[in-house]
């Protein structure tokens, strides 16, 4: 029988309008995220970091590995955040290092989201033996503790630089997203429009990626921001442990060298504090943006929406 609730009142046929163009859809999504206070703060922070990373060659006072300065000095007009034990300018390192952190975060986040989408959607759609096999593999990745696995893989692939870090982060980071996307796929696959696509003669591949996938865009975007956050933290963690290429300048290696030179004991708090704060802020900004993305997938979570 007819589903008749108060919401049906809004089901008055809308006036004839043009189908929204992709650009309009994007503008609407962006304005929804922007309308969320937390997400706005997140976007501003992330935007600032990206801007600083891009402008690093212009605004950094010195080169990242320029080490001809007095060693281990405190903040001064020449070196706003002081210098390292090797005689490098900390502010310059911070600015140059942001390039690596943001790059690794976005690329590793993107790659692990792509894997999560591919695995999660096919896992949710297939039934029987195939699903069991995927289930086994995903569970394997889920139950192995993340950090030890990362360390083992990183040690095995030692000396690979940024590329190696990205590979390690992706291998250990895709499984959770795949699990979430699989549940949503399972709930969507029982919807009538999916059955209707079978009746339209569609192949399973097309059903999964043209019918089901677009209906979970916001979930995937949310998953991307979550994965990027995890990637940034994992990258910093691995490099701090000295598992990456310690010759490149990134926030993680800055922490590694600061720890090596006992920065805290010598009173050079900026060496640890500045990169640590930047990592925390960048991770926070992505998490804050996710609040806004939640508002798209679940309109009831929209804060500050018109009452």
């Amino acid at each position, binding site marked *: *029988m*007819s*589903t*008749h*609730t*108060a919401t*049906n*009142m*809004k*089901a*008055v*046929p*809308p006036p*004839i*309008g*043009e*189908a*929204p163009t992709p650009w309009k859809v994007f503008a609407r999504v962006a304005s929804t995220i922007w309308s969320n206070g937390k997400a706005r703060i997140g976007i501003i922070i992330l935007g600032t970091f990206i801007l600083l990373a891009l402008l690093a060659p212009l605004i950094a006072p010195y080169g990242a590995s320029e080490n001809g300065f007095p060693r281990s000095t405190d903040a001064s007009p020449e070196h706003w955040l002081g210098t390292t034990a090797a005689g490098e300018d900390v502010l310059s390192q911070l600015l140059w290092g942001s390039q690596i952190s943001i790059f690794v975060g976005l690329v590793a986040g993107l790659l692990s989201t792509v894997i999560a989408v591919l695995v999660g959607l096919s896992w949710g759609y297939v039934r029987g033996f195939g699903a069991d096999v995927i289930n086994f593999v995903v569970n394997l990745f889920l139950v192995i503790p993340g950090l030890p696995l990362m360390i083992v893989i990183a040690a095995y692939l030692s000396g690979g630089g940024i590329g190696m870090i990205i590979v390690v982060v992706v291998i250990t980071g895709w499984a959770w997203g795949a699990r979430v996307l699989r549940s949503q796929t399972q709930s969507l696959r029982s*919807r*009538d*429009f999916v*059955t*209707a*696509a*079978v*009746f*339209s*003669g*569609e192949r399973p591949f097309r059903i999964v990626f043209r*019918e089901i996938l*677009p*209906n979970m865009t916001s979930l995937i975007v949310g998953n991307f921001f979550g994965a990027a956050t995890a990637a940034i933290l994992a990258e910093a963690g691995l490099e701090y442990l000295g598992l990456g290429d310690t010759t490149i300048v990134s926030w993680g290696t800055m922490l590694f060298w600061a720890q090596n030179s006992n920065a805290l004991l010598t009173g050079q708090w900026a060496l640890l504090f500045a990169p640590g704060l930047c990592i925390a802020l960048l991770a926070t900004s992505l998490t804050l943006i996710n609040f806004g993305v939640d508002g798209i997938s679940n309109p009831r979570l929209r804060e500050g929406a*018109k*009452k």
Partner: protein
Amino acid sequence: MTSHGTEKLLEVLDLSVDYGYGTEATHAVRTVSFSLEHGEFVGLVGESGSGKSTLGFALTGLSKPPAHVTGGRVLLDGVDIASLDAGDLRHQRHGGIAMVLQSGMNALNPVRSIRNHFIDIFKAHGHVARDNWHARAEELVGKVELPKQVLDRFPGELSGGMRQRVSIALALSLEPKLMVFDEPTTALDVLVQHAVMNTIIELQKKERFTAVLISHDLGIVLESAQRVMVMHEGEIVEDGSASDILNNPKDDYTRMLLSHYADPRAEVVELPGFEDRSARTAAGKPRAAAATHAPTVSSRERRTDQKAMVVSNVSKVYPAPRRGESPVTAVDDVSFTLEPGEALALVGASGSGKSTIAKLITAVEKPSSGSIRFGDIDVASLRRSRFRQLHSDVQMVFQDPYAALNPLHTVEYTLTRPVVNFTGLHGQDARRRVLELLDTVGLSPVEEFAAKLPHQLSGGQRQRVVIARALASNPQMIIADEPVSMLDVSLRAGVLALLEDLREQWGVSLLYITHDLLSARVVTDNIMVLNKGRVVESGNTADVLRNPQDEYTVRLLDAIPNPGRKGAA
């Protein structure tokens, strides 16, 4: 009508309710005024979007954003409901207004026993002495014709009908003067609907509260209420006694609604756009084509290589839902043949196995035993990779047009896919075919409809798109699973007429699955009545419905609300 004289219980003065603000506001209720006397049973009827539920919520002070009252007053015993704050409003729930919702049966807390639901209310209002709690709870469930054992059950252990009865008893526990029933039986099965409605009517007679019954179904309202208000686009277009509305409707809209009701048992059944079927077949003339856009047949001739769907001794057993329970037999030894061009109705209450049969003959599910053949295709053992072969001839129209279209694809994309997959047309040829299909189902201007997304279409238009998609492969057989049950009464005839025209002009055979015997009577030649997976009766539709042999068929027929019955009795 009432023994309480002219004293008014509820007065509504120029009430208006909007959704949204400013220029985007939807005026759901527009300056409505009426009054209710003590002990009256009033029906409020209208189609979806008419504002009837919004009005019901405004009466009880339960309007939620974005709905908000923009003007007018609701006076209960002379007190303006809008002037009460949340605390006062909660107080007046005792001895004031109670509401029973369509989904009231889902409003029970699954981890608390029914008894605790009653005790929660007694505690909150303190109107029943502690010693008296259990006796009062037993009395209340007794009033809605439930045994007192249900008090110790949990909501999950009760059927939908029983839970809806419990929610009525809960509403009653505060001794309301006014009860608002918002589609109280719509979510229930046909047979249960009838029983719950009878309970409500009896209860109102005994308890003498004032009742407002909100429903989309004029039949139910006319059968139960003394006075009926008809709502259309936010306004009350007619307000009169049930017999006046039935015998002497004044408003065109009321007349239109009434014209869609008929008794499926009558000798001659006619609906707008449909002449009586037996008369029509006898005379060999097609359906009166004036009512809807007649399909264009340019793109295809009547099929000559017709195949029949032969179902023999099919059973489907699902494994036990829980350990220790017995397996569920959804379909039990069913056989039938659907000849080319035939229209067969499959009727039964929910759980009778009719939708399972649809899944079996479309190869979505495999039968446990028996055989299904369509031409030379063995449907029962069809592999997934060969579905296209079957689906190019057998297509399906879904029950819920809101769920059957992908919300993100335009109508053109939705229709292009089966055209490309089944007919091998591409590019401009495929597009021409899509526009032709839209024209066939009466959606013109075709170019404009092709570009639309589902949310820009009404329910009836969506269902036409679903039918167009089913036609894209030039099928020989269409399975329509309750194709009109989600649609408003005034849209139903149009969709049914479309199916009928297609069948007549294209020679498509139709398996029409429904619980609505009236629509089965107007669009099908033959009927099969299913009960618990078994065929209890079959034969010519008109014969079976006019002269039912099985007791179950009789019960189904009795459950149909019939506005004329009360007047005739």
